[in-house]
């Protein structure tokens, strides 16, 4: 009785019109085949369809609005926007190269650390851990992926940055200081801090998707390997080979997240539009320049330049995610049908 009351408001309106012809006409068992015979079915299906179209349309709307919003700079600078590094709101000269480089360096640094670790975690969870250990650990990893970016940033400012400035960076420059990556004064804030915090943030994603991918490999393959006398690691190597493309997909998803990550990076990267080899130096990313300057962008060209950066970020993440999802989907389908 209680359940009868819990109907969504939209559908109650439909009840009055569609109820009458319903019970008599709708005798067919297969869902879908009765769609022409019942007005309610027709209305409900197309109502939900409308909202599904809205979900799809939203993506195109976002792309279109940003394309339109950046028309000024697209026209004025063209491709030069991507390869020049002057960022001067006073003279209205804009080039996004430092931000693109900053995004690339911080994201790749993050992947360099997070991919091997995440893969190790995935192997442990999917191949080695007993179920009683695997479930809570998986949940823990997923739960930690839900910590808001701003909290990572908070931790970054008060724990990671002091740690880098006082301990890690002095050690690195005295032991590995001959490398161009570890030179210059230790501010704490900089590319290294950004890369480290990003790696912590993307790790749960890479780990949990790789784990799911490893799980889709049929047990038959493991059993066959074990039956031939392979050790656990040799079996895992076979599983890894089968799941190769899916793991690549997981890496791309991690990259997509790292590229678009804003708050935590903005809080620790130092926000200076320089291109340098040293990871100790402050940098800037595409996402953090938008976060810092958008509210203060006073003239039309300035705003347009920032919207163009957002537009590129949108295109890049859409492509990364589409390719990654496609790979992961294809992988699960391959093993489901075989």
């Amino acid at each position, binding site marked *: 009785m209680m359940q009868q009351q819990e109907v969504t408001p939209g559908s109650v309106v439909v009840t009055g019109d569609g109820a009458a012809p319903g019970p008599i006409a709708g005798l067919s068992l297969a*869902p879908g085949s009765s769609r022409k015979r019942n007005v309610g079915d027709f209305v409900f299906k197309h109502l939900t369809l409308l909202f599904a179209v809205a*979900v799809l349309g*939203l993506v195109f709307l976002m792309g279109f609005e940003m394309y339109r919003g950046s028309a000024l700079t697209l026209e004025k600078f063209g491709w030069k926007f991507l390869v020049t590094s002057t960022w001067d709101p006073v003279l209205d000269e804009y080039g996004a190269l430092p931000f693109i480089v900053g995004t690339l360096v911080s994201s790749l640094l993050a992947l360099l650390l997070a991919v091997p670790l995440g893969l190790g975690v995935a192997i442990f969870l999917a191949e080695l851990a007993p179920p009683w250990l695997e479930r809570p650990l998986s949940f823990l990893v997923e739960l930690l992926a839900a910590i808001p970016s*701003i909290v990572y940033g908070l931790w970054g400012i008060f724990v990671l940055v002091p740690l880098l400035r006082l301990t890690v960076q002095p050690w690195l420059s005295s032991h590995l200081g001959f490398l161009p990556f570890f030179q210059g004064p230790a501010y704490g804030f900089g590319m290294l801090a950004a890369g480290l915090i990003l790696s912590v943030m993307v790790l749960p994603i890479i780990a949990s998707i790789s784990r799911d991918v490893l799980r889709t490999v049929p047990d038959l393959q493991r059993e066959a390997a074990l039956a031939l006398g392979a050790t656990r690691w040799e079996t895992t190597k076979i599983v890894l080979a089968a799941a190769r493309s899916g793991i690549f997909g997981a890496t791309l998803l991690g990259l997509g997240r790292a590229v678009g990550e804003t708050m935590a990076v903005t809080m620790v990267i130092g926000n200076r539009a320089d291109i340098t080899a040293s990871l100790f130096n402050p940098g800037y990313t595409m996402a953090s320049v938008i976060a810092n300057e958008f509210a203060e962008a006073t003239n039309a060209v300035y705003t347009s330049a920032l919207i163009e950066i957002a537009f590129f970020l949108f295109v890049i993440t859409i492509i*990364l995610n589409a390719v990654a999802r496609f790979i992961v989907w294809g992988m699960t389908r391959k093993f489901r049908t075989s």
Partner: protein
Amino acid sequence: MNGTSLWMFRWRKAKNFGMNFFALACLILAVTPLVLIFTYTLLQGLAALNLDFFLQMPKPVGEAGGGMANALVGTGILIGLGALFGLPIGIMGGIYLAEYGNNPFGSTVRFMADVMSGVPSIVVGVVAYILVVLPMNHFSALAGGVALAILMIPTVTRTTEEMIRLVPHSYREAGLALGIPQWKTTVRIILPAALKGITTGILLAIARAAGETAPLLFTALGNRFWSTAVDQPIASLTVFIYDYAKAPFEDWNRQAWAAGFVLIGLIFVISLLFRFVTRSRYAQH
């Protein structure tokens, strides 16, 4: 020959042991910083939290004490607006995908919803700026709500779909066998059965939206004063954390931790709830 194969065998076993150990080490190394962040926030936040935080307004620069009452209300209003715009689209879209979505169009929507969930939240903020702030000519809670709605939609769509798919097929067959039209079966039988899962899934999406900062920076902007007007800039917990974390006042830093604690607490309680609800669903069949 026997000797070499024995040696080979030992080498393989050692390698096996080594790699298993490596995987375990990875796990420990990966989970440690995450757990550190979590516990550090809890400890700092717990120490910083007091009743003033919930009941007082922010004090002027340099003055100790005060709270974030306006930000708590502001975040509430923002996620309320986000839910108002985002949930109908997400839920109805999810129903479509679950009930009628086994076709190329359904797959496209599903795929794009997944892809859309990977769009950076800062980009969504820019879109909301173009769509709402530019026409209105000033920052507003409304713009923040639109940004949060766009962020919620993919999650809500996919969760609703998955929760409906968890309802056993026999429910649907029973409804149809009684001669009930398909749409009525969906609304009166399938949806109530999936309601608990959908509700907690929605709560999860809302909790995540409450943790968003980047899309609010130039839509809702922030406000140090009491404001509940939808067409005016409004305060939010996350933007307060951002401002207070950068500020050189110890008391503001303390309050940033308190706000972080409240956020994490909210998200974790709801995540646990979601886990509990979906798990008991799985256990049924």
